[in-house]
C-alpha cells in the first residue's frame, strides 16, 4: 500500500512540476536549429541603441545583440543578468552593483564596470527617447573596480531596477567613446558590437536582418544558429508568408479571427497570454459635458464590454476593469466592480438633467443634442469595429456618436498634441490604448491620472481629482511594497469612482509559430515570444 502511495505521490509531484515549468513556456525540446525566420513589420534601421526605431520589435531585436544589467524573467519581472549582487543605500540614492566577470563583447573585449558608467554618462550627454526616460534621475556613476560600480541618483526613484537596469543596453566604451553624433553615425560594418546572444551579420533595408549565434555568449551558445528577421510592409502579407511556411514565427500577435484558422494548420501552434496592452475610450474633460462624472459613468454603464470581447475579440481578451489594472495583476483590487447596466446609465443622465426634450431619441445638454465624434485611427480595424459597436450602444441611452476614422498621426495630434499634455486636447471622445509597459508596471498608474502634468504626463483627459493626486503622491514616496500595493488598490477604487476613461478590455497576445520547426520559445507577458530567453539554453534562464 505504502509503495502505491509513494508512486501516486511521485506521479502527482511530477505532474505539478511539469505543469509549473510548462505554464509559461511552450516546451523545451532542446533541439538545436540551424535557421529560424521570424516575420516583423517595418524596418528598424541598423538597430544600435541610437538607431532602432520602435519599442516592438526594435527594442527586442536590439536586446538580442546587447545585454542589460537586469533582464525580464519568464514571469515578466526583472531578474539579475549582468549583475550578481545589488545593494541599495537606505536613502535610496545609491545602488552598488557587482557585475559578472565572464562577459565579453562580440569583438573579444571584456564588459566591465567602466562600460556601465560610460553607458549612463553617454545617455545623459546624448539622450535618446526611451533610454533618456529610463535613466531619469541619474546623477553620476563611480567605478569601484572593474566589476563593481556605484550608481548615484539625484532623488529616489521608485522602480529604478525595472526602468533603468532592465531596459538600458550596456554598450562598449571602446566603440562609442569615438562617436560624437550617435544618431547619425554610420558604422562601416553592419555588426553592432554588443555582448548579446546574437551578432548582426547582414542588413538589407526593407528585406531582412541576419543574426548569427554568439558562440561565446556568457549564458551559453544559443540554440538557434541563425535568426532571420524578415521585414514585411503589413500584417496581411506576413500572415500569407507564414501560411506558406516561408517564415516560422510571427513576431507580432495575431488578430483574434486568425486564431482558429492558423490552429487548423498541422505543425502550427498558438500560445496565448496577457499582453498588458489596453483598449480604452477616453473623454476630454474640457469638452462639456464630459466634465461631469455622471456622464462619464453613464457611458461606462452603457457599454457592454463582455459583448465587445466576445464579438470583436472572439473571446481573446479580458474585460476591462473600471480601476484600470488588469485582473491578472497581483495588485488588482477585486472590490472594484465593472458592470453593464443600461437602466443605470439612463438614470445617471436623467439625474443631471440631460434628457430628450424634443422626442428625437437624442438627449440634450444645455439645449444642444448629445452628439459627439468618437475618433479612431484608420489603420486599426479592431478599434474601428469597437467604435462602431459603442456607437450603437450609446444610441440606446440617447447619445449620438459619429465615428471619425482618421490617419494615425492626425489622430495622435488631436488627442496628444506634440505628445505633451500641457498643450491641450482637440477631441471630444477617442479610442485609445497604451503599450504594454504602462499596464505591466502597475505602479505607473499615476502617470495617467495625476493632475500635475509633471507626474501625470500621460493624463490625456484632463482629469483633476484631489483624492487621486493624494494617493499618487503617497505612492511616489512609499517604499514598502505592502504599503504600495495597498495604495495602488486605493488608487484603482478612486479611478473607478472618477471614471476619467473607460477601460474596455485587455487584449490577449495570441502568437503563432511553426512548432514543427522549433518548439523552445519562451512566452513573456507583454514581450511576446521573440525574446532572448527563447533562444538561449533553458538552464541559463534567470
Amino acid at each position: 500500500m505504502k509503495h502505491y502511495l509513494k508512486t501516486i505521490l511521485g506521479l502527482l509531484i511530477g505532474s505539478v512540476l511539469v505543469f509549473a515549468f510548462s505554464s509559461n513556456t511552450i516546451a523545451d525540446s532542446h533541439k538545436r536549429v540551424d535557421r529560424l525566420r521570424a516575420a516583423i513589420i517595418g524596418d528598424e534601421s541598423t538597430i544600435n541603441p541610437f538607431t532602432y526605431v520602435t519599442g516592438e520589435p526594435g527594442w527586442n531585436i536590439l536586446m538580442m545583440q546587447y545585454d542589460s544589467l537586469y533582464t525580464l524573467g519568464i514571469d515578466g519581472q526583472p531578474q539579475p543578468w549582468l549583475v550578481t549582487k545589488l545593494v541599495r543605500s537606505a536613502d535610496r540614492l545609491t545602488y552598488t552593483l557587482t557585475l559578472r566577470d565572464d562577459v565579453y563583447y562580440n569583438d573579444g573585449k571584456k564588459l566591465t564596470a567602466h562600460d556601465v558608467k560610460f553607458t549612463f554618462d553617454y545617455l545623459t550627454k546624448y539622450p535618446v527617447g526611451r533610454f533618456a526616460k529610463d535613466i531619469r534621475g541619474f546623477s553620476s556613476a563611480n567605478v569601484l573596480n572593474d566589476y563593481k560600480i556605484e550608481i548615484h541618483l539625484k532623488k529616489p526613484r521608485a522602480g529604478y531596477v525595472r526602468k533603468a537596469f532592465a531596459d538600458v543596453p550596456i554598450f562598449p566604451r571602446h566603440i562609442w567613446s569615438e562617436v560624437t553624433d550617435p544618431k547619425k553615425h554610420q558604422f562601416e560594418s553592419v555588426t553592432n558590437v554588443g555582448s548579446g546572444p546574437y551578432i548582426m551579420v547582414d542588413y538589407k533595408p526593407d528585406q531582412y536582418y541576419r543574426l548569427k549565434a554568439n558562440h561565446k555568449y556568457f549564458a551559453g551558445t544559443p540554440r538557434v544558429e541563425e535568426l532571420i528577421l524578415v521585414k514585411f510592409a503589413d500584417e496581411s502579407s506576413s500572415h500569407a508568408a507564414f501560411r506558406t511556411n516561408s517564415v516560422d514565427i510571427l513576431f507580432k500577435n495575431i488578430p483574434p479571427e486568425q486564431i482558429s484558422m492558423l490552429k487548423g494548420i498541422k505543425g502550427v501552434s498558438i500560445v496565448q497570454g496577457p499582453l498588458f496592452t489596453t483598449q480604452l475610450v477616453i473623454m476630454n474633460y474640457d469638452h462639456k459635458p464630459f466634465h461631469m462624472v455622471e456622464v462619464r459613468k453613464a457611458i461606462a454603464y452603457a457599454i457592454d464590454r463582455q459583448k465587445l470581447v466576445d464579438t470583436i475579440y472572439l473571446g481573446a481578451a479580458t474585460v476591462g476593469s473600471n480601476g484600470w489594472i488588469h485582473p491578472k495583476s497581483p495588485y488588482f483590487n477585486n472590490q472594484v466592480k465593472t458592470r453593464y447596466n443600461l437602466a443605470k446609465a439612463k438614470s445617471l443622465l436623467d439625474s443631471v438633467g440631460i434628457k430628450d426634450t424634443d422626442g428625437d431619441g437624442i438627449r440634450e445638454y444645455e439645449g444642444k443634442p448629445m452628439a459627439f465624434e468618437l475618433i479612431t485611427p484608420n489603420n486599426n480595424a479592431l478599434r474601428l469595429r469597437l467604435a462602431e459597436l459603442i456607437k450603437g450602444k450609446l444610441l440606446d441611452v440617447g447619445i449620438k456618436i459619429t465615428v471619425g476614422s482618421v490617419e494615425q498621426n492626425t489622430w495622435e495630434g488631436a488627442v496628444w498634441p506634440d505628445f505633451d499634455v500641457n498643450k491641450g486636447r482637440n477631441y471630444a471622445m477617442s479610442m485609445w490604448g497604451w503599450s504594454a509597459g504602462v499596464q505591466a508596471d502597475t505602479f505607473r498608474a499615476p502617470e495617467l491620472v495625476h493632475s500635475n502634468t509633471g507626474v501625470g504626463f500621460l493624463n490625456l483627459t484632463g482629469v483633476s481629482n484631489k483624492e487621486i493626486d493624494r494617493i499618487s503622491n503617497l505612492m511616489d514616496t512609499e517604499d514598502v511594497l505592502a504599503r504600495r500595493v495597498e495604495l495602488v488598490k486605493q488608487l484603482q477604487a478612486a479611478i473607478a469612482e472618477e471614471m476619467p476613461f473607460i477601460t474596455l478590455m485587455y487584449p490577449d497576445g495570441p502568437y503563432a509559430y511553426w512548432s514543427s520547426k522549433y518548439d523552445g520559445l519562451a512566452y513573456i507577458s507583454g514581450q511576446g515570444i521573440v525574446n532572448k530567453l527563447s533562444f538561449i539554453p533553458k538552464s541559463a534562464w534567470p
Partner: protein
Amino acid sequence: MRSSRGNRILEYLVVFVIAVSLNFFLPRLMPGNPLALLAGVDVGLMTPEEKAKVKEEAGLDRPLWEQYIDYWNDLLHGDFGYSYKQKAPITKMIGDRLPWTLLITGSSLIISAIFGVIFGAISAWNRAKPVDIGLLWTMILMGSMPTFWLGMMLISIVSVDLQLLPSFGAMTPAFFGTFWESVADVASHTILPVITLSVWSIPGVYLTMRYTMLSVLGADFIRTARSKGLSEKTVLFRHVVRNSLAPVVTVLAIRLGFAFGGTVVVETVFSYPGLGRLIFESVSGRDYPVLQATFLVITVAVLVSNILADMLYPLLDPRAKAN
C-alpha cells in the same frame, strides 16, 4: 525657334521650382508632426525640455522660412540629409530601393506597352466585331480591378493555395545561391507584382491606342493608301499603326516618370522593398527629409520624361515639328 526652346526650358524651370517648393510645404501642412520618429516611440514619456532638445537638433524649432532656405541650400549641394526614422543617409536609402522599384515598374511598363499596343491595334482593326467587343470588355474589367484586391487574390491563390510563387519580398531572405540561381529567385519574386501592375496598366495603353487608331483609320490618307492598291498588311503597319503611336508614346513617357515613384499599393501588398513603400511609411511618420527627397526624385523623373516626350513627338509625327 531658339526663343521657343528657351521659353520651354524656362517653363520647365518654373515648374521645377514650384514642384520642389510644394515638396517642402505639403508634408508640413499635414496635421501631426514627426516628433515620434525623432524621439522614438516613448516620446510621450519625455519631459518638455527633452522634446524641445530633440526638435532643436532637427531644426524644427526654427521659423519655416529659415528651414525652407536651408532646404534649398542643401538641395543645391546635393545633400538630402538624414531620415528622421531610420537615422540613415537618404541618398543611400533611395539608392537601396530605387532599383527594385524600377525592376517591377519598368517590367510592367514594357509589358503594358507591348500588350496595350497589340491589343489596341487588334481591337481598332476589328472595330465592332466580337474580338473588339471582347477585348474592350476585358480591358474595362482589368482597369477597374483595385490593385490591392488583385494582389491579395494572386497571393491567396498562386502563393498560399497552389504554392507556385513567393508571396513577398524581392528575393528569398538571406538567399545565397549562384548568380543564375539568384536571378531565378529574383524573377520568381517579380512575377506577381508585375502581373498586378500590368493588369492595371495595360488598359490605359490599350484604350489610347484603340482610340487613336480608330481616328487614323478614318483619315483621308488611309483611304488614299488603300486606293493605291497597297496590301492591308502594309496599310496596317506602315500607315495606321505608325501614325497611331505618337499619343501612346506620350502616355508611356509620362508613365516612365511616375515609375520612379514606385507603386505604394503593390509594394505594400507584396512587401516589396521599393520606393513606394518608403514613401508610404514616410508619409505615415511625417519623415519630412525622406518625403522631400523621394518627391524630388519623382519630380525630376516626370519632368525629364516630359522633355523626352516633347522631343520624341515631332520624330513620330512631323506635323508637330511643322507647327
